């Protein structure tokens, strides 16, 4: 143990252990000295750390040294430009030279849109990888266009099933997430029991996805069918697929569902569902709840700019994604023709 230096200049730190720093007055003069590179001296040599019992324990923000081990978007762009390993814009440029992206692309590839999260959590390379892998999977299996309200038949691999394949028919009540994380939920009645199965759209254990009826509803999700009579989601397993044309607009089923009496799984009157019979719904509610529901359903949300900003994909990003997908869609069609 080296001898402790004498308490000169008020800086004797060696023998005090760690407690002395709790009363330290800290200055920043040393940091801005225009001196050549020097190794730091031990604490007892650094006069800016003066032990002081009643010293300030609050550091100024610029001294607090917030460590940001992240690259800013500008730094990332500069790094990609320098090294040439950035996102590949060739497909988007090729799409610019062609005509506008046809509307069927936006119907077929709804999950190609980037996720609605803050910019800190989005990366163009990862999003382009998601899109490329989605299109690779579509070369193996045909994924039809479907919306919430359509009826699908999905066959998955099941080693315990007699034919090693398990087929389920149901009404699509939910489509969630984007990219390779996309999932959809089918609902049906099996032996008078309600069954909901959530499938990952790009899982390789899905053998086939067959569209039986193409339809759209008035809402983004049909979760309120959980509190509706079972007749609304009873679909026969031997249903014959109905023909549809891709050029026609998707038919909208404007059916309004009458819910069962409460208690409900969720406060359906507070989510702005258009597919519920509202008069019938309000008949179950107290006056206070009805007033709240009516207040909620007032169409003031379309004037809420911040809500629109936070809950929508930026238009340039959406355009870029669809252009990227459009070129890959054309390559997919060529691949399918070659296979035939």
């Amino acid at each position, binding site marked *: *143990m*080296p*001898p402790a*230096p004498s308490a*000169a200049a008020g800086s004797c*730190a060696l*023998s005090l*252990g*760690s407690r002395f*720093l709790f009363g*330290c007055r800290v200055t920043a003069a*040393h*940091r*801005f*000295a225009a*001196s050549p*590179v*020097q*190794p*730091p*001296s*031990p604490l007892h*040599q650094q*006069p*800016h*750390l003066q032990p002081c019992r009643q010293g300030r324990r609050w*550091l100024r923000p610029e*001294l*607090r*040294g*917030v*460590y940001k*081990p*992240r*690259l800013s978007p500008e*730094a*990332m762009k*500069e*790094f990609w430009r*320098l*090294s*040439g*390993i*950035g996102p590949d814009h060739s497909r988007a440029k090729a799409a610019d030279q062609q005509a506008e992206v046809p509307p069927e692309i936006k119907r077929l590839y709804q999950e190609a849109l980037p996720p609605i999260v803050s910019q*800190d959590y*989005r*990366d163009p*390379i*990862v999003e382009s990888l998601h899109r490329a*892998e989605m299109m*690779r*999977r579509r070369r*193996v299996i045909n994924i039809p266009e479907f919306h919430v309200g359509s009826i699908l038949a999905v066959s998955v691999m099941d*080693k315990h099933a007699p034919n*090693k394949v398990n087929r389920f028919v149901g009404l699509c009540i939910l489509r969630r997430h984007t990219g*390779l994380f996309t999932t959809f939920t089918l609902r049906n009645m099996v032996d008078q029991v309600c069954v909901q199965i959530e499938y990952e759209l*790009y*899982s*390789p*254990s899905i053998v086939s996805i067959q569209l039986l009826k193409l339809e759209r509803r008035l809402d983004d999700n049909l979760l309120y069918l959980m509190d509706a009579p079972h007749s609304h989601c009873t679909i026969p397993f031997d249903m014959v697929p109905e023909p549809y044309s891709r050029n026609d607009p998707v038919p909208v089923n404007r059916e309004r569902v009458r819910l069962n009496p409460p208690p409900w799984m969720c406060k359906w009157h507070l989510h702005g569902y258009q597919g519920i019979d509202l008069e019938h719904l309000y008949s179950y509610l107290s006056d206070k709840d009805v007033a709240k529901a009516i207040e909620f359903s007032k169409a003031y949300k379309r004037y809420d700019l911040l809500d629109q900003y936070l809950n929508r994909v930026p238009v340039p990003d959406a355009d870029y994604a669809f252009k990227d997908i459009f070129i890959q869609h054309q390559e997919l069609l060529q691949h399918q023709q070659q296979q035939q």
Partner: protein
Amino acid sequence: VSAASAPALSSQLIVAMATAPHTWLRLVPSCRSYSKATRLHKIDYPWKDEPKPHWVRQFEARRVDADLTPENRDWLRQWRLQRVRDAVASSSEAAAAASPLKEPPAARPLWTPRVSQRCGLVGIKLGILPMWYRNGQKVHTTVVQIPDQRVLRWVPPEDLGNYASLREMRPYRLNQSLLPRWLTQQRWGLQLVGAVPADPANFTAQWCGIFKAAGLPPMRKISRFLVSPDAALQPGACLGLHHFRVGDCVDVVARTVNRGFQGVMERHLMEGGPAAHGSTKFHRKMGSAAGGGGPIYRGKRMPGVMGNRFRAARSLPVLRVNTKHRLLFIKGFTPGPPHSYCQIMDSWMLDVRRSLDANPPPMPTYFAEDAPEGGYPEDVYHPDLLPYDQPLELPD
């Protein structure tokens, strides 16, 4: 305040400090227990969360030359960036061949079991991509991009005591009586690696001077790795994507997501209080601080900033390598938000070390002569991984 005005060191202390640090860094008072409370450090100092070297200022505001026209300013910037590109190996193999260290050393070291520890790579975490195994099981992979990086310096184990950044007082050295083993055993040396070259106009002259000795352009990030002397690399050597092979298990060390000031329920998973049943203003509090009338003990769990700590995810296999964008697909999740730096190194876990003894990796790093005939394809998959353009075939 400069070093010249600091109090002079006694000659005995100078001699002591020139030797190994564990002889003069024992600063622990005699009455110190080894409980968990005393092993925690809560010291604050200006350079606490700053990356090393913090004694050198990295960034400075760009000089505004009023005499230059905008066209000339842009031309100069392109000229600077082109020089950076020429100085550092780009993605093309031809540019890598221009490096003076393109040839491996005359005698490449052999992998010595239980001794060798290679240098690691600096990576940038981009995001997460789900994939599937050939048995139908889902696996999430972290996509990490390997930027341009070069070796900056080698500090042999004998010189660790004199190394600048280790001479400062770290808080755990004041609390604990035991120094980290890599400092006391001196089996491994420090390999400094610089990553992400950038426009020199962003940086101060001092920062650029650190890279000048190795003949490199300035880079944004300096990392250090603990490397055995037989795997030491010379300054300026290239570190590339193929340093790790598909199937190698790696440790990923990174700074976790900063969750801000959090209460005890979120930060330390305390129970809090009842939400109802007459609970008066006691729902998310800490409760008692113990002590029995005395002061609150050091290290008591309390609200504070959560996250923003270095953590390691151990033994994660590399499942896929993409040579176009220079990506590693590492199984599982790694700490840190997207676009954050991470250190990737051969795993320290014993079973991984034993498997590396059987199948040694390229030592000391990957060189062009290790490339297979015909080069690498764009995507190299682990044999257990199912590419998306192949159908799943489950065995009966």
